[in-house]
């Protein structure tokens, strides 16, 4: 092994050594002869005669060494490079095609690798399981604090478990007042993820209990921004919603957990610090979810069984509140990447198709070229090369091409992937973890070599029987070649068809989704959060109400504002909140799970105007539905259907779980999509209940001072609207904080982001496939025309019209296209079924998509065939006849 290496890399040295060795022998012989008394000239002459031809011996020495695989390879590579340089046009087209094909594959694979294949950046990520409470209306509902504590104590399958709940706080005392995002977490949250603070410490056991001292962890970014990364930050206090918390640690910036319900934030407080009065209630659904770490060697199934045991015990211990409550477990990895997985795999398949089409195209080019090079091979064979040797040479050339394309593709994708990832980071979990690591490099290498063999092998093998006879033949009439080329074209069209149909179905799904009526007018609708000055969280309910009234008046005084409404509770497509009720005249059910559940919208009188939700019956709220007037409620058609079937709900009264007195239903509005545009109907909880904002129970009114949503309909294009609103709010105080402004269209667009980006990529892949297929057809039909020049000339000399000639050529093109379309159609029918779960509003065999794709692809095929056909009609019969 070491020997051939040395020989390849030190060829000159080997030659030199051979030379010295023989010279040494000669000199020794001369010296010996001189010793026996010969003159030095005579000795030299005799020795040379004796020795024989030095060059011949050297050659024999060289030949006595076996020719090594790698030496041949090196030779082939050198020869191949020379051949590729000699036809720069072909080489450029082939490498460009491969760069695109392999580059796109590398890019998509690097995303698949970073997002789906690489383990999450936590120790033993397979042990991390997200925890949810299952209850009648929600399979993955929020966990109540007391239940969590019992789960923690009684489970036997988790090494640790923790809960978290998002929140936002008004930060004061560090520059301007601002709204910061944060989470309430329990003590094990960071330790079980393997996150240790860069400074200070994590929360300790017991520090997360209700009533413990107010402590805080801050993010590294926040620490740098607000404290200049000073160590003195430890022990300092920060003021959130007017309350002081002692900083005990800094969470490293590398902590990047992003999933449904969690994204990294600036502030983390112990869950026990949450002042929500419902926290200690076992029935409260407060948006708390959990993560646990399984004990080593525990499976999720075993943990699920264990949690069922725990839940059964809790249901027995608290039958009135915990009946039907269980635990749902989802692996953390699945929760993080489960949603994008099918899209990524779809894209991977799509780029695979593009590469396949590229390979077929290049195989076609190679086939045409190998015909041209037939003489070259014949000469080599005549000089003693075996057919296998020539085929090996050809394969080396094609792999060289593929590797060049692979390297360039790698460059292209490494440059573009960052830019693309930055723009899709909101829609792609773990986008920051995507890199070109060893696995991606290996993938590209293997893919390149396989492509090289794939497109090189068939043309090389086709050559075999022809190689021997080529010397004798002057002209090649290879009907066989034409049939291979046609097979290539048919394959290409079939592949392109499947890809185009898949893309078409996905694009149609996206348009269907965009056109889904959410039940309100999402255009010209702005949403934002706003909090009253921090001291208002300690003020009386009356003061809070009047502060909100002033704010409402201020907002409505802005000229661009058509209508605005506060909203507490659920906001369509943004966040949910539930309220429990039971019918008037019935006893209060002992368990909340025996009450009726509804989505809870606590809104102002202009809500319908702002949202443009149609009123179906009765009336909506007015400014008079306030804290002094009797309680009223408005319901949606879904609630009316479910709880007041075949009766008029207007005038009926219901008991609300957070109110002392019953509320009278005064109106019915149409249903609004709360959950999402695509799987709204799959959600169990549909009934919707509206209540006047000013009738919010007093303790909630005070909580609302910490932040409510505003829904605001504006006129026309209002680019400076948010700034305008901020200026107006400043009239009231500098301590109001406006945060998270977003138009409803942006919300919808963000909700469809995964789909939108996938569609954009998928569409460009499909376009590329279409282009490649068209180029393939063009090349093959051009070849056909070139071969038939003479025939066409004869036909035209015998009176064939241009139309006849075009017909002849197009006939060839369309026959191939038809066969391809037919096979593609069958393939599409078979394969698009796999897409079923990704489609929306259309079937996997949507006729419109199939028809449009067939027309587009057929049209492209005919166009690609027409160009050479037109050239054929320009054939001058005299020239054509003379050319043989």
């Amino acid at each position: 092994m070491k020997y051939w290496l040395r020989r390849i890399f030190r060829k000159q040295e080997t030659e030199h050594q051979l030379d010295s060795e023989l010279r040494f022998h000669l000199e020794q012989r001369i010296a010996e002869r001189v010793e026996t008394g010969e003159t030095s000239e005579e000795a030299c002459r005799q020795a040379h005669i004796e020795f024989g031809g030095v060059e011949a011996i050297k050659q024999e020495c060289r030949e006595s060494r076996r020719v090594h695989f790698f030496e041949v390879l090196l030779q082939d590579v050198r020869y191949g490079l020379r051949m590729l340089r000699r036809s720069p046009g072909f080489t450029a087209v082939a490498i460009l095609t491969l760069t695109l094909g392999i580059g796109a594959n590398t890019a998509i694979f690097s995303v698949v690798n970073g997002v789906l294949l690489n383990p999450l950046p936590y120790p033993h990520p397979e042990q991390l399981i997200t925890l949810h409470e299952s209850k009648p209306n929600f399979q993955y509902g929020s966990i109540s604090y007391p239940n969590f504590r019992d789960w923690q104590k009684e489970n036997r399958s988790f090494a640790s478990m923790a809960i978290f709940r998002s929140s936002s706080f008004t930060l004061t005392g560090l520059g301007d007042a601002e709204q910061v995002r944060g989470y309430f977490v329990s003590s094990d949250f960071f330790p079980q993820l393997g996150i240790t603070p860069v400074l200070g410490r994590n929360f300790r056991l017991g520090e997360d209990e209700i009533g413990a001292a107010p402590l805080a962890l801050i993010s590294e970014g926040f620490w740098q921004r607000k404290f200049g990364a000073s160590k003195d930050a430890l022990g300092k206090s920060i003021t959130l919603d007017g309350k002081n918390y002692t900083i005990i640690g800094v969470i490293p910036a590398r902590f990047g957990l992003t999933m449904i319900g969690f994204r990294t934030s600036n502030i983390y407080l112990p869950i026990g610090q949450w002042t929500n009065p419902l926290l200690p209630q076992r029935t409260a659904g407060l948006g708390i979810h959990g993560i646990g770490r399984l004990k080593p060697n525990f499976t999720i199934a075993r943990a699920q069984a264990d949690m069922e045991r725990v839940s059964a015990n809790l249901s027995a211990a608290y039958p009135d509140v915990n009946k039907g409550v269980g635990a749902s477990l989802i692996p953390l990895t699945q929760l993080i990447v489960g949603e994008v997985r099918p899209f990524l795999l779809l894209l991977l398949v799509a780029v695979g198709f593009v590469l396949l089409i590229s390979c077929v195209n290049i195989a076609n080019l190679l086939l045409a070229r190998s015909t041209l090079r037939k003489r070259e091979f014949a000469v080599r064979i005549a000089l003693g090369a075996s057919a296998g040797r020539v085929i090996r040479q050809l394969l080396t050339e094609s792999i060289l091409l593929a590797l060049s394309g692979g390297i360039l593709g790698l460059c292209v994708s490494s440059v573009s992937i960052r830019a693309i990832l930055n723009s899709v980071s909101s829609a792609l979990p773990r986008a920051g973890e995507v890199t070109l690591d060893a696995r991606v490099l290996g993938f590209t290498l293997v893919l390149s070599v396989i492509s090289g063999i794939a497109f090189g092998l068939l043309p090389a093998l086709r050559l075999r029987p022809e190689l021997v006879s080529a010397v004798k033949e002057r002209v090649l009439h290879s009907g066989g070649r034409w049939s291979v080329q046609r097979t290539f074209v048919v394959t290409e069209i079939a592949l392109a068809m499947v890809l185009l149909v898949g893309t078409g179905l996905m694009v149609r799904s996206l348009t269907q989704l965009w056109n889904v009526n959410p039940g309100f007018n999402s255009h010209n609708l702005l949403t934002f959060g706003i909090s009253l000055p921090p001291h208002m969280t300690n003020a009386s309910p009356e003061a809070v109400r009047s502060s909100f009234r002033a704010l409402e008046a201020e907002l409505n005084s802005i000229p661009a504002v058509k209508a605005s409404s506060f909203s507490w509770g659920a906001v369509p497509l943004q966040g949910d909140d539930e309220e429990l009720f039971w019918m008037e005249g019935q006893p209060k059910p002992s368990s909340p799970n025996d009450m009726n559940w509804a989505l809870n919208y606590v809104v102002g009188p202009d809500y319908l105007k702002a949202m443009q939700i149609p009123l179906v019956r009765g009336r909506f709220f007015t400014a008079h539905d306030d804290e002094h007037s009797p309680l009223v409620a408005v319901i949606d058609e879904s609630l009316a259907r479910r709880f007041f079937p075949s009766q008029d709900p207007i005038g009926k009264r219901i008991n609300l779980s957070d109110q002392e007195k019953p509320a009278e239903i005064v109106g019915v509005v149409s249903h609004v999509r709360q959950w999402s545009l695509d799987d709204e109907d799959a959600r169990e909880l549909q009934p919707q209940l509206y209540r006047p904002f000013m009738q919010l129970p007093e303790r909630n009114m005070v909580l609302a001072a910490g932040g409510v949503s505003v829904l605001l309909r504006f006129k026309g294009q209002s680019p400076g609207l948010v700034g305008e609103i901020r200026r107006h709010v400043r009239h009231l105080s500098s301590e109001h904080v406006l945060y998270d402004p977003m138009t409803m269209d942006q919300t919808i667009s963000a909700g469809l982001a995964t789909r939108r980006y996938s569609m954009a990529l998928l569409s460009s892949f499909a376009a590329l496939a279409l282009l490649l297929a068209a180029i393939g057809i063009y090349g093959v039909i051009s070849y056909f025309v070139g071969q038939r020049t003479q025939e066409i000339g004869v036909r035209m000399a015998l009176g064939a019209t241009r139309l006849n000639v075009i017909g002849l050529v197009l006939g060839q093109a369309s026959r191939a296209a038809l066969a391809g379309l037919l096979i593609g159609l069958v393939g599409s029918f078979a394969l698009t079924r796999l897409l079923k779960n990704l489609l929306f509003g259309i079937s996997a065999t949507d006729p419109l998509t199939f028809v449009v794709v067939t027309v587009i692809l057929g049209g492209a095929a005919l166009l690609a065939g027409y160009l050479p056909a037109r050239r054929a009609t320009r054939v001058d019969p005299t020239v054509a006849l003379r050319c043989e």
Partner: protein
Amino acid sequence: MRGMDAKSEFLKGTLDMLILKVVALGPIHGYAISQRIQQISKDVFQVQQGSLYPALHRLEDRDWLEAEWKPTETGREAKFYRLTRKGRRQLETEVRNWEQITGAVALILGTSE
């Protein structure tokens, strides 16, 4: 080898065996190998350079010999060959084969008419 058909595979193998045997005695350069074979065989074998060097390179290529450039007693640098472990095993097999063949040949020749 003088006087014999050097192309014959049988003799090529014999030359290889002789070289291996000589080299087995200790590191030695090409010129000395030819001298040794001539001496030991009492001038029966005179190895031609045209056979010796290709044979040496063939044996080196098969990893039966390894070579090293070292100064001779006279101070000139020369390429010294040495037997590898693989080469020693090869020599043993070849010697065994040779003994079998010559033994068999002797048996046949030894039979009286």
